[in-house]
């Protein structure tokens, strides 16, 4: 399958162009904070419950809150039905999302507490961990939990030998290599970095750069969503 034609990708994007990202905050009634995100054909819902007493008790930390992020794909979010419940992949992703978000939340402000972040992938089209993490960061901000910075995320990969940002499903299936990245957009530091495939040092550096720039674009969408939610609150919705 040919993934590049005249420098354009299957959906007409340039190599350094990310898909459309839309974010809406405050979409759930019960969660303390929530965000709905569309990123290309990805549809993601993130919700936050906090700060309550951590359960089970033996996981409590008297010096800070414990943030647990649960990443879950709905069975119908992919072409071939995924069995409900956590598989090994989603448990690994839950772990690295928990770590990335813990980098930025002021956990020391809530000793003994638990902060539960849910990421539900409702429709999946490659890049769901980046999309989920991006939504989760907005949901935490929407909940009013103090953060050092936001977390913004994007991936880059290799298609037909070229480095391209934000692969969609067909590119992911037929291409090779993927570098998911998440950063603190103001501090410019890395909180999530994975890679698989085959990349030379130079290819990796290019992918890293593209993913970084992609994440900065995503950051703008996050900011706009949070600002507009603040406006609507001030406007007395």
């Amino acid at each position, binding site marked *: 399958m040919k993934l590049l034609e005249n420098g354009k990708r299957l959906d007409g994007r340039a190599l350094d162009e990310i898909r459309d990202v839309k974010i809406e905050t405050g979409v*759930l*009634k*019960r*969660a303390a904070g*929530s965000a709905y995100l569309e990123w290309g*054909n990805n*549809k993601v*819902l*993130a*919700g936050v*419950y906090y700060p*309550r007493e951590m359960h089970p008790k033996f996981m409590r930390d008297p010096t800070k809150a414990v943030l647990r992020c*649960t990443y*879950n794909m*709905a*069975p*119908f*979010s*992919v*072409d*071939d*039905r995924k069995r*409900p419940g*956590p598989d090994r992949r989603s448990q690994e992703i839950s772990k690295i999302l928990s770590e990335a978000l813990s980098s930025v939340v002021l956990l020391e402000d809530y000793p003994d507490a638990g902060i*539960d972040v*849910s990421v*539900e992938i*409702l*429709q*999946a*089209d490659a890049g769901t961990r980046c999309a989920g993490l991006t939504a989760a960061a907005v949901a935490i901000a929407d909940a009013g939990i103090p953060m050092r910075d936001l977390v913004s995320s994007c991936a880059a990969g290799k298609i037909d030998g070229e480095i391209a940002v934000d692969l969609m499903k067909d590119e992911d299936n037929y291409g090779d290599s993927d570098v998911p990245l998440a950063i603190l957009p103001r501090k410019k530091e890395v909180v999530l970095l994975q890679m698989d495939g085959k990349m030379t040092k130079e290819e990796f550096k290019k992918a890293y750069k593209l993913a970084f720039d992609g994440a900065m674009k995503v950051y703008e969408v996050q900011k706009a969503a949070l600002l507009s939610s603040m406006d609507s609150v001030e406007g007395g919705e």
Partner: protein
Amino acid sequence: MELEGYLRGDYIRNIIKEGKRLDNRKFDEYRNLEIEKGYVGEKACGSAFVKLGDTKVLVGISMDAGEPYPDSPGQGVMTTSTELRPIASPYFESGPPRQNSIELARVIDRGIRESGAIPTDKLAINDEKVWVVYIDIHILDNGGNLIDAGGIAAISALLDTRMPKFEDDTIIRGEWDGKLPIECTPIPCTVAKISDQLLLDPTQDEEYAMDTRLTIATTDTINAMQKGGGFGTLTDKDVDDAVELAFSKGNEIRKLVEG
């Protein structure tokens, strides 16, 4: 939160004795119902997002080629799963399905199965394989009355469902071959009993207060019933009244679902 539940329950019981509901609905009034079919249209064979007041439920339908049950050769298979996702409420826990979740899935399943909405005898693929229809009910925001919201979303998603193309003994993902035939539109309708009153479509707060509930799924016949959700009792009259309510409200909802 347990205590909060008790206190809210008390408050609700009192205002219901005065003939009112917290959200000013009449006792036989449903909350606002919105149905968006095809919500997961790029991936799922069928889907529907339902908002019933605050309650938000997403149902997706997946279809796969599988084996029939040994005692039903040539008959398609349907299976219904519910996931009370932790995002939906601070009370839910991750982990294996528990009794509430199992009851929810089974009651919704019975309404669809017993009405014959899915004509399993038309779902043979070849001598060995049949279609397996997976109904996955994903609860995203629990504002109460999950059985009705989930049941309405499930039949809406089934009405949205396309048959995957099947060629050379394999499914061609992303290509379709007509719609899944659906024979009728079962609608579950739940009444809560609080302070000797029957109320349609209870909110989560009203569920704290309720003595019991009775769910009745109807088409032109009754297809499923379930008393549950508490230690209260029902009188003969309660049952009769609930049956009447289920048929009349079911007809209204059915128009929305089919529309």
